[in-house]
């Protein structure tokens, strides 16, 4: 046990914690003013329900030794999860590791809300988050971090490209397709970009805790992660804006913020295994491909991924997973592996397997969960509620009041 690491991880946990309200604000600013509270609520409620779920059973399913597919029930209700270090780090309390991971579990679910904004029933989404967290998040987290089969296979995912970003992005996409388009999808513009800017800034801030904290100690790898995260986000902005400027002759603020997030998503799986120079490249390409996903792919395929949960997290996470297979080098982290550009094709192959399996698993289970819920609670709100706005119809509130 080392107190310094505990302080570090307490800080990192708090930083990641802040990303969830950050997402709520980031998303909230992008919807119409009649839906901002509902949207924020979607991202906020996981702080309540998933947190409780996590201590009750989620953590055990994800991290307790079990089999290669799912954790066991040993740590249900935090049994044996106390101050003594757990198997994942000798230097911090087990309960602290559990809380650090709780913030990831919460955040992942709150990202999904971007795909379903402005048309999903609140109660349906609430139920969905619980089931999804158990049936999708827990296994995928277990595969990668809990000693499951992807870990055994030797794929690399430093801070959660697969577990957090691909899984939430794909889930958002599946739900978006199942729900169908918003009635006013073609016509919508962010009602409050400063709010989105603020949210995006909190997200970026927290991401340093997300990535650097994933080292679980402040060592050489952690410091490299810190540098990589900083430059990849910066490069993501530049990548996005260049492509945006080429396409539209404008560099937008929403683009800059989105680019930062794209860069951050892209570097997430790779950050502990690549050099800063590679990180810049990964970030620039991350920004560019996410713009492409949001702009071109979405238009082309016609789904209404309202706030681009898939466009940023799914696509960025996919690129990040691939990039790890290309740019990883053991010179940076001896627990890592060499990627294609360092002479080894193996890793890229494993990364692709991990990505593809995650896509399929998440898509299928998300679909089933949503279909089952739909038997009891319709997923989509009524047309009238949608046009009146979900804040008023589902929550009985309006975000803004003027004098009259």
């Amino acid at each position, binding site marked *: 046990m080392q107190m310094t690491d505990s302080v570090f991880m307490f800080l990192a946990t708090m930083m990641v914690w802040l990303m969830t309200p950050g997402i709520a604000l980031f998303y909230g600013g992008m919807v119409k003013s*009649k839906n901002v509270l509902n949207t924020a609520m979607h991202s906020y409620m996981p702080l309540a329900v998933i947190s409780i779920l996590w201590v009750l059973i989620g953590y055990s399913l994800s991290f307790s030794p079990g089999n290669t597919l799912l954790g066991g029930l040993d740590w249900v209700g935090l049994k044996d999860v106390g101050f003594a270090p757990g198997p994942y780090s000798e230097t911090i309390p087990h309960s602290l590791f559990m809380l650090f991971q709780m913030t990831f579990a919460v955040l992942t679910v709150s990202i999904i809300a971007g795909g379903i904004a402005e048309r999903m029933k609140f109660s349906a989404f609430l139920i969905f988050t619980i089931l999804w967290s158990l049936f999708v998040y827990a296994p995928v987290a277990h595969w990668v971090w809990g000693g499951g089969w992807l870990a055994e296979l030797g794929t690399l995912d430093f801070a959660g490209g697969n577990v957090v970003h691909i899984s939430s992005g794909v889930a958002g996409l599946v739900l978006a397709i199942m729900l169908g388009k918003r009635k006013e999808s073609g*016509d919508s513009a962010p009602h409050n970009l400063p709010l989105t800017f603020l949210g995006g800034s909190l997200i970026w801030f927290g991401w340093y805790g997300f990535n650097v904290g994933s080292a679980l100690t402040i060592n050489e790898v952690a410091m490299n992660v810190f540098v990589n995260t900083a430059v990849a986000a910066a490069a993501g902005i530049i990548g996005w804006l260049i492509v945006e400027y080429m396409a539209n002759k404008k560099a937008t603020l929403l683009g800059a913020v989105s680019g930062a997030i794209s860069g951050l998503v892209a570097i997430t799986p790779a950050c502990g295994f690549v050099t800063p120079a590679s990180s810049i490249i990964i970030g620039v390409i991350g920004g560019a491909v996410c713009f492409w996903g949001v702009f071109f792919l979405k238009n082309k395929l016609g789904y209404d991924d309202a706030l681009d949960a898939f466009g940023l997290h799914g696509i960025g996470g996919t690129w990040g997973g691939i990039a790890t297979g290309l740019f990883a080098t053991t010179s940076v982290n001896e627990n890592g592996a060499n990627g294609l550009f360092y002479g080894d094709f193996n890793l890229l192959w494993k990364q692709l397997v991990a990505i593809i399996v995650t896509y399929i698993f998440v898509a299928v289970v998300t679909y089933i969960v949503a279909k089952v819920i739909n038997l009891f609670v319709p997923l989509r709100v009524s047309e009238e509620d949608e*046009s009146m706005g979900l804040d008023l119809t589902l929550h*009985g509130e*309006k975000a803004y009041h003027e004098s009259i």
Partner: protein
Amino acid sequence: MSEVLTKIEIITRPIKFEQFKAELAKIGVSGMTVSEVKGTGLQKSYVETYRGRNREMSLHDRMKIEIVVCEVPVQDVVDVARKFLSTGKPGDGKIFIYELANVVNIRTGKEGHDALKNDL
């Protein structure tokens, strides 16, 4: 001058304005003024709740579109509006029609009928 100047004021729910504008452009309407208003009428009221306290509110978001025409027949505008805006549900709104005494174009200084002509 036998011209008649008429203001057509449409009160309706928030709509896709650019599409509506395109419809009106077809019949020759080029200028219009739009504002956000609240309205109460047939549409049923709703309840807001803050920290447990309920308030019944009957003001709905509405859009007011003002169009002054001279050459374009008023009936045409009414027809286009009804076609585009009517959903058959309470809240579709009303069209109020007024007569104007005069119009002045600030830039050109032209009055009446000429003030509405779009010459640059």
